[in-house]
């Protein structure tokens, strides 16, 4: 039953993907096949285990990896993790466009995987190096539409875009985007933040107006723009990185943000994370290996490493984002409280109402323009 929402969202593409992946693996000449119980790392069908380089250059969202995971990885493989951070998918793309090379591992959101793959910024995933993934991944995370053949990416985690508010400081109980906007423009003016991300902000506003998260209709986008321009003067900040702390400190009382941050706030202060009734974004962030990387084996080793249930539990208990591992594998290793937390693992009914971001270059350009106006206002 749980699986329904995935099929609803992603049709039957998952099926196609699995068979495609099998074919792909077979074509690569690896002696293991996906159907077979993918064996423990040591017995990867006779081929020598590729040597992990001494460094992993990990370009990632900030605060998206448990410090403990870095430590364990470094101990296990004797490799140093070099870190750099970006604040939005668009920043990551801009950095690649600007010619930055040498990153071994990045974590874009689904739609950005597609764009980066089209632009030739990604290298293919070598599945033979990922026995843990093959064994432990929940099949509904395979063959997702942004990467139907699982050629470019491996899911890291998934979540929703909604808003969080302090229940002790906001006496109304907002449940919709409309209420969020109205409260932000009313009693809580100057104490509200929104994400510094084009799709999240424009898409959520479109949804509030009753349109698709991915609308490319100029009239609808114009309406969304007007809403955003009206909201702008009431915002404390436009940030994807600092709002968690701001809400915890009480400098902000409401924030448009992601579920993991919402859950993290709720873990420290009386607060609630809301997936708006109108809907919103459902997203999957995925590991990908950019072109120009220098330590591909270390990148694969990392992906494989975090697909170990115990390590994965470390990650989930730090980020508060849903894990793509089979649920039964997390039972026992992940804190029950987190496993049953619907902020971290949203209910199927909730997710059924959401859309993943997916916009054409033309739609993106319209959004960029709105973004400039929003920032300029």
């Amino acid at each position, binding site marked *: 039953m749980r699986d329904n929402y995935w099929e609803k969202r992603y049709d039957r593409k998952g099926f196609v993907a699995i068979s495609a992946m099998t074919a792909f693996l077979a074509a690569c000449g690896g002696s293991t096949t996906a159907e077979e119980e993918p064996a423990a790392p040591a017995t990867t069908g006779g081929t020598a285990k590729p040597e992990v380089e001494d460094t992993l*250059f990990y*370009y990632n969202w*900030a*605060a998206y990896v448990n410090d403990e995971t870095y430590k364990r990885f470094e101990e296990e493989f004797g490799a140093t993790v*070099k*870190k*750099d*951070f970006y*604040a939005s998918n668009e920043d990551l793309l801009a*950095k690649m466009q*600007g*010619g*930055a*090379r*040498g*990153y071994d591992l990045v974590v874009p959101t689904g739609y950005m995987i597609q764009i980066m793959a089209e632009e030739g910024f990604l290298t293919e995933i070598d599945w033979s190096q990922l026995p843990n993934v093959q064994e432990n991944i929940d099949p509904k995370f395979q063959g997702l539409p942004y990467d139907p053949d699982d050629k470019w990416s491996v899911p890291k985690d998934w979540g929703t875009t909604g808003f969080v508010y302090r229940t002790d400081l906001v006496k109304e109980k907002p449940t919709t985007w409309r209420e969020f906007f109205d409260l932000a423009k009313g009693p809580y003016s100057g104490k509200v933040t929104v994400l510094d991300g084009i799709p999240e902000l424009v898409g959520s506003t479109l949804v509030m107006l009753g349109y698709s998260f991915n609308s490319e209709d100029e009239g609808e986008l114009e309406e969304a723009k007007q809403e955003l321009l009206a909201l702008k003067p009431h915002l404390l900040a436009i*940030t994807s*990185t*600092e709002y968690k*702390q701001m809400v915890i400190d009480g400098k902000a009382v409401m924030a448009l943000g992601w579920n993991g941050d919402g859950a993290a706030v709720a873990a420290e202060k009386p607060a609630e994370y809301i997936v708006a009734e109108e809907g919103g974004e459902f997203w999957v962030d995925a590991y990908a290996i950019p072109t*120009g990387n220098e330590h591909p084996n270390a990148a694969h080793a990392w992906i494989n490493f975090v697909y170990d249930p115990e390590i994965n539990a470390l990650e989930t208990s730090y980020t508060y984002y849903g894990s793509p591992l089979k649920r039964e594998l997390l039972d026992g290793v992940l804190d029950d409280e987190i496993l049953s937390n619907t902020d971290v693992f949203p209910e199927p009914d909730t997710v059924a109402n959401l859309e993943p971001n997916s916009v054409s270059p033309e739609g993106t350009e319209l959004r960029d323009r709105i973004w400039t106006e929003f920032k300029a206002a």
Partner: protein
Amino acid sequence: MGKRLLQAHSLLVYLFLYAPIAVVVIFAFNGGRQVLNWDGFSTKWFGEALADPTITEPFKNSLLIAFGNAILACILGTALALALARLRPWLRAPIDALVYMTLVTPEIVFGIAALMFFVQLGNWLSLGSILGLWTILLAHVVFNASVVALIVRARFVGMGQSLEEASFDLGAGPLSTFRQVTLPRLAPAILAGGLLAFTFSFDDFITSFFVSGAGTTTLPLRIFSSLRFGISPIVNAAAAMILALTLLSIVAAYLVLRRTAQMRREATVIPGV
């Protein structure tokens, strides 16, 4: 009465100028993790900053770039200053204009132009991405060579050239004239220019931001990125140490330059570039 008022005003201005510096230093000694919640006096963040490779690594990068930049800028700028002093006006005017252009072009404009240029250059030479320490250094030198040229030239013109004349008349070549006559007298100006070039480069954010590649982080870039992810006490400590370092080098430079008679002139010329 007017004097008292002016004095009070000046006092307030100095307070305005130094309060931020004082605040960074004071809060660097805050033992708590929350920057604004005073949690006892502690020097532990200094130790942590010095042990944190994500701070020491960029610090080394910044030193390397600033140093290389200063040397290159001194060579190019001094040579240019010497040449400019004798060029005919019709030749000198456009060069002057070019030098001033490098100084007044908004950094953001130059930064993006340099970014596009280096990316294209990498493509044309089939080198792929060439962004890194070198591109930052090369980009910094543009501005700083002009800074050095201006300072050295002001001094060169100001000190009169009868000694050089004599040296040339006695048959000495340009090289030995430079070494024996000009360099000793220009040294303070070149040193001042080099010091400025070093500081500007060490401090630069915008140009570095655009022409740095993957993983070549300078100290200002590191501080900026930590700002986006919330102020941390470690960064406060690092900032305090940088301030102390700059202040020390300024005092040192001041003492060195004071020995040369022209101190006052330089102090006026330098920052007004």
